């Protein structure tokens, strides 16, 4: 009887995992830490862990990951004490610079929307463009968190709804959490 219960429990566990995968695939994504201070860390979930680059890009630290459905780049731009206009829907210059870094040409801004993620204001931009002769769509999120701008850009093949859904899920996964010993992607 006890053994049957163990089996039923294991089946339930796997069944729930399957349901979670179908409805909340991001549950299985690893979270990568973008910044850390004495008490808090900023984390974002992406299907593959973000790898920090040893180089800097014009004073910005950056991370990259190539996932099955999209490529993602995260740039940390220190803003210092410069005031930032939150209501301005124009994408920051850094967003266009990041697209240029990956050879994206003929960039067209399709949508700009202010959303809230974990109590932080986030500008979400959607672009289309050409790279190496192929059409790509890009979703970029610009988070303003304590004198820093985090720009996370997702590149995927034009028209891929699943890749776009994954990118939007990842954008909404950003959170600040209590600092733990786990400091990946640093």
């Amino acid at each position, binding site marked *: 009887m006890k053994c049957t219960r163990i089996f039923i429990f*294991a089946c339930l566990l796997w069944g729930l995992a399957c349901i979670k995968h179908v409805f909340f695939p991001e549950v299985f994504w690893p979270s990568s830490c973008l910044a850390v201070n004495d008490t808090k860390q900023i984390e974002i979930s992406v299907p593959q862990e973000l790898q920090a680059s040893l180089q800097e890009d014009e004073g910005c630290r950056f991370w990259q990951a190539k996932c099955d459905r999209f490529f993602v780049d995260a740039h940390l731009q220190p803003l210092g004490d410069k005031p930032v206009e939150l209501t301005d829907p124009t994408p920051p210059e850094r967003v266009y610079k990041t697209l240029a870094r990956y050879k994206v040409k003929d960039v067209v801004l399709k949508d700009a929307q202010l959303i809230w993620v974990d109590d932080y204001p986030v500008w979400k931009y959607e672009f289309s463009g050409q790279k190496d002769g192929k059409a790509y769509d890009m979703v970029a999120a610009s988070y303003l968190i304590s004198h820093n701008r985090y720009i996370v850009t997702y*590149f995927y093949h034009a028209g891929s709804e699943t890749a776009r859904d994954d990118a939007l899920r990842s954008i909404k996964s950003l959170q600040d959490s209590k600092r733990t010993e786990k400091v990946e992607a640093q």
Partner: protein
Amino acid sequence: MNQWLGTIGAVMMFLYEVIPGSWIWQTGAPEMTAVDDFSLCYPVAETMRDGRTFSIYLPVQPDKKQQAAAAPYVSLGEYEAAADGYQIRILHGVLETAAPAPRFDLAGFRQAFPQAAGNFDVQGEGIRLAGNKPLHIIEGVDGNDRKECLGFQAGRDVWLFYFQCAKDDEEAKAAIERVVESIAIN
């Protein structure tokens, strides 16, 4: 029978704990393949005297310098980019008139790039196409280094390129190849 169910249940729970979700839940073929190259690069673009634009993508941020013009050039600019494993130098000279054509031979490249001197053992010399433009190329080895010099003239504008990396550094060779492939004149 019950014992078997219990054992299977225990194994299922063990696998649930130890196997990363991404191993099991991967569905469909990856949309991002090796063809989707997402190397970070820095665009360099200059308008030439004939009105066309020369552009190239470098893997690291280049230093731009203006050199003292020396005959036959009336102005001479330089881009230098170096990272772990490779060195890239680009010279852009402007001639007073479209003639005389500069020398794209070893002596000419040695004059432009001191690094091309020494024990440069030439292994190949000819023309290669990049950006629909025929480029003069000389490649060879010098000790453990692989060196490549390229050049072309477009009216009054002369572009000379020098690439160096370790002979067995496949990653650096691929990075250099991407740079050469990115040359475009529009």
